[in-house]
C-alpha cells in the first residue's frame, strides 16, 4: 500500500472519483491551472479537462450557488473553498438553499454536492486563514459534516461524501496536510460517514477529538500515566453516538478537544449528549479543551490559543484526580 501525505490522499480521492463517475466535477478558485493552493486538485484539469476541474471566479457564494443549479442539471459538484474563513460567504447558499432544497422538492430532487476546504490553525498564516468553522456547518439542517485526521480517512471520507446523495461538507485539517503520512488503499476506498474510529483503546479515560486535534490527543495520551482511549469522531454529522456512549460507559471519564472557540462549539453538543444519555456512567465532569472565545489570534501567539498537548494532559489529570 502506498504511503501518502494527507493532502495527497485528498488528491487521490478526487482522481478516483472523477474517473469512476462522469458526473463528478471539481470547481473552485485556483483548482485548475494551479492545481489548488495546497495542490489538492493537482493534475485533475490535465486528466479530466477544464470542464470537470473548473477555475471559477472569486465568488464563494457563487460557487456554492451555481453548484445547486449544477446538481439540478445532473452534476455532482465538489466545491473547494480556498480557506476556512473565506468560506463564510457560502453560508448564505448553504443555509438558505443547500440544506433545504431536497426538502423543498419533497424528495423529488437530490443535491449530491460536496464542499471541501482546508481548515484550522497552527500554520503561521495571516488573519483569517486559521478558523475552525465546523459549528456553523454542523448547525445547518440537511447538511452532513466530516473531518478526517489520517490520509486513509481523508481519501475514504471524501469518496463517501462525493457518493452521498445529500450535501456533505468535508473539513480537511491543513496543519497536518503534509505532516500526517500513512498507508492509503489504492483505487476506490470509501470510509462510511457516521462511524467513529477508536484510535487506541483504554480503560481509565477517553479523549474525544477530530481533525488536527487527533494527533494532539494521541500525544497527550502518551504523556498520561493511565490507560487512555482516544476516539476520532471522523464524522460530526451524523455523529456516531453509539461509539461515544460506548467509550464513556467504558472509561467513565471524558475529555473533549476542539480548536474552535468554546461557546456553543461542537464539544458542547457532545457534552450535552453525555449529560442526557451517559450521566450514570460518568465518574467525573465532562471537560472541554477548546480554543478561546476570541478572534483567532496573530500567529506569534497562536500556540497559546490552540489546544496543546499540555492543556489536554492537564484536563485529563484533573479528571483522573476528581
Amino acid at each position, binding site marked *: 500500500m502506498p504511503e501518502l501525505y494527507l493532502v495527497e490522499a485528498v488528491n487521490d480521492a478526487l482522481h478516483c472519483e472523477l474517473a469512476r463517475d462522469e458526473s463528478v466535477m471539481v470547481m473552485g478558485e485556483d483548482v485548475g491551472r494551479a492545481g489548488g493552493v495546497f495542490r489538492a486538485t493537482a493534475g485533475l484539469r490535465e486528466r479530466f479537462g477544464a470542464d470537470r476541474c473548473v477555475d471559477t471566479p472569486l*465568488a464563494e457564494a457563487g460557487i456554492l450557488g*451555481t453548484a*445547486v443549479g449544477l446538481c439540478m442539471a445532473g452534476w455532482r459538484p465538489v466545491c473547494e473553498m480556498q480557506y476556512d474563513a473565506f468560506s463564510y460567504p457560502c453560508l448564505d447558499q448553504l443555509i438558505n438553499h443547500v440544506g433545504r432544497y*431536497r426538502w423543498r422538492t419533497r424528495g423529488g430532487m437530490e443535491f449530491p454536492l460536496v464542499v471541501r476546504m482546508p481548515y484550522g490553525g497552527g500554520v503561521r498564516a495571516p488573519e483569517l486563514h486559521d478558523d475552525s468553522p465546523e459549528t456553523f456547518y454542523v448547525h445547518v439542517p440537511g447538511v452532513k459534516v466530516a473531518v478526517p485526521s489520517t490520509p486513509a480517512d481523508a481519501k475514504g471520507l471524501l469518496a463517501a461524501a462525493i457518493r452521498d446523495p445529500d450535501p456533505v461538507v468535508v473539513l480537511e485539517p491543513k496543519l497536518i496536510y503534509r505532516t500526517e503520512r500513512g498507508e492509503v488503499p489504492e483505487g476506490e476506498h470509501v470510509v462510511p460517514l457516521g462511524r467513529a474510529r477508536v484510535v487506541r483503546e483504554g480503560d481509565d479515560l477517553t479523549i474525544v477529538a477530530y481533525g488536527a486535534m487527533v494527533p494532539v490527543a494521541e500525544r497527550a495520551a502518551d504523556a498520561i500515566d493511565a490507560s487512555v482511549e482516544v476516539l476520532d469522531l471522523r464524522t460530526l454529522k*451524523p455523529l456516531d453516538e453509539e461509539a461515544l456512549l460506548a467509550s464513556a460507559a467504558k472509561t467513565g471519564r471524558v475529555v473533549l478537544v476542539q480548536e474552535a472557540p468554546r461557546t456553543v462549539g461542537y464539544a458542547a453538543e457532545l457534552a450535552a449528549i453525555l449529560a442526557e444519555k451517559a450521566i450514570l456512567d460518568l465518574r467525573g465532569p465532562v471537560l472541554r479543551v477548546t480554543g478561546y472565545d476570541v478572534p483567532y489570534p496573530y500567529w506569534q501567539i497562536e500556540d497559546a490559543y490552540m489546544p496543546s498537548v499540555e492543556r489536554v494532559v492537564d484536563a485529563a489529570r484533573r479528571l483522573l484526580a476528581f
Partner: protein
Amino acid sequence: MAQVLPGEHELRRVIDEDREVEGLGEADLLELYRSLILLRTYDERSLVYHRQGRIGTYAIFWNHEAAQVGSAHALEDDDWIFPSYRESAIGLLRGLPPATVLSWWRGHPAGWWNPADYNVASICVPIATHVPHAAGLAWGKKLKGDGAVAIAYFGDGATSEGAFHEGANFAAVMGAPLVLFCTNNQWAISTPLEAQTKAEALVDKAAGYGMPGIRVDGGDVLAVYEATREAVARARDGEGPTFIEAVTYRVAPHATADDPRAYIDLARVEEEKQRECVGRYDAYLRRLGVLTDELAHEFKEDALATMRAAIAAAEAEPPAGPEELFEHVYVDPPTSFGSDLAELRRILDA
C-alpha cells in the same frame, strides 16, 4: 443580433407603437391573452382568499402579468424557470396546478412541487439567491450538451444583492445560456429605485458583466415576448446570457402585510393603474379585431372556475401531520429523527 449598449435607455415597445410581432399568429396572440387573464385572476382571487383567511401572507403581482407572461411564452418547455416570490404562480403557465401554489401560500407541504416535473424551480424567498442556481443549471445543461436555456426572475432591489452579482458574473464567464430577467417595478417594499442604485438605468449593469442588455416596457406583453425571444435565441446559439430590464410599476402593496400609503405617491399609483398591462393588451387585441367580448368573457369565466376548483382542492388537502417535520430532509435520515418523532407523538397523543 443587435446588442443594446449602455446609454440606450429607450424602452422597447410594441403595443404603444401599434406594431405587430413577427411570427405571432392570432392563436398565439389569444394564448398570451388567456395566460394574462389566468395570472390576473389568480392574483385577484388570492387577495380575496387572503382577506377571507384562506391563505396566509401573499405577495401581490398585479400589473406584473405582462412581464411574466411575455417572457415565459418565449421559452420552450425544456427551458427552466427560476421564480422569485413575485412570480409564485408562473408555474401555472407550465401546467403546475394552481392548488399547489395556493397550498404554498397556505403554508401546507403540498405547496412544494418537484421542479423537474415542470422545469420550474422552487419559489425563492430570499432576494436574488436563486440567480446563481439559474446560472449553474444553465451552465450544467450546456456542459451536458443539452439545448436548454434558463431564466431567472428578480426585482430591481435584487440588483443590489451580492448573489445577483455573483450569479450574473458566473453566467457570463461560463457562457451560460441564461436570461437574467429583472422586473423593475421601482419599489423594494418602501425603498424607491433612486435609493437602490445610482445607475441611470438597471440595464447599464449588463455592460459590467460583458453581456448585452435590453430595456423593455414591462407592461407590454408583446414587447417583453419579443425581447425575451431574442435573449433566448442568443442563449441557445451559444452566445451566453442577456440581461433584460422590464420596466413597470408596483401599483399594489409589496405583499398583503404592507401598507404603502406611508411611502408611496397615491396619485402616481392611480395614474399607473390606468395603464395597467392587461387592459393595454385587451385594447390592442380589440383594435386588431382579434378579441371579442364573447372570447374575453369565456377566458375570464374559465379562469374563475379554475380558481374556484383550486382553492377547494387546496382546502381539501388533509392536514399535515408531525411526521412531515422529518420527511425529505435527508435521503438517509439520522436515527434521531425516528426517536424525536416517537417522543413528539407520545406527547401529542397523550
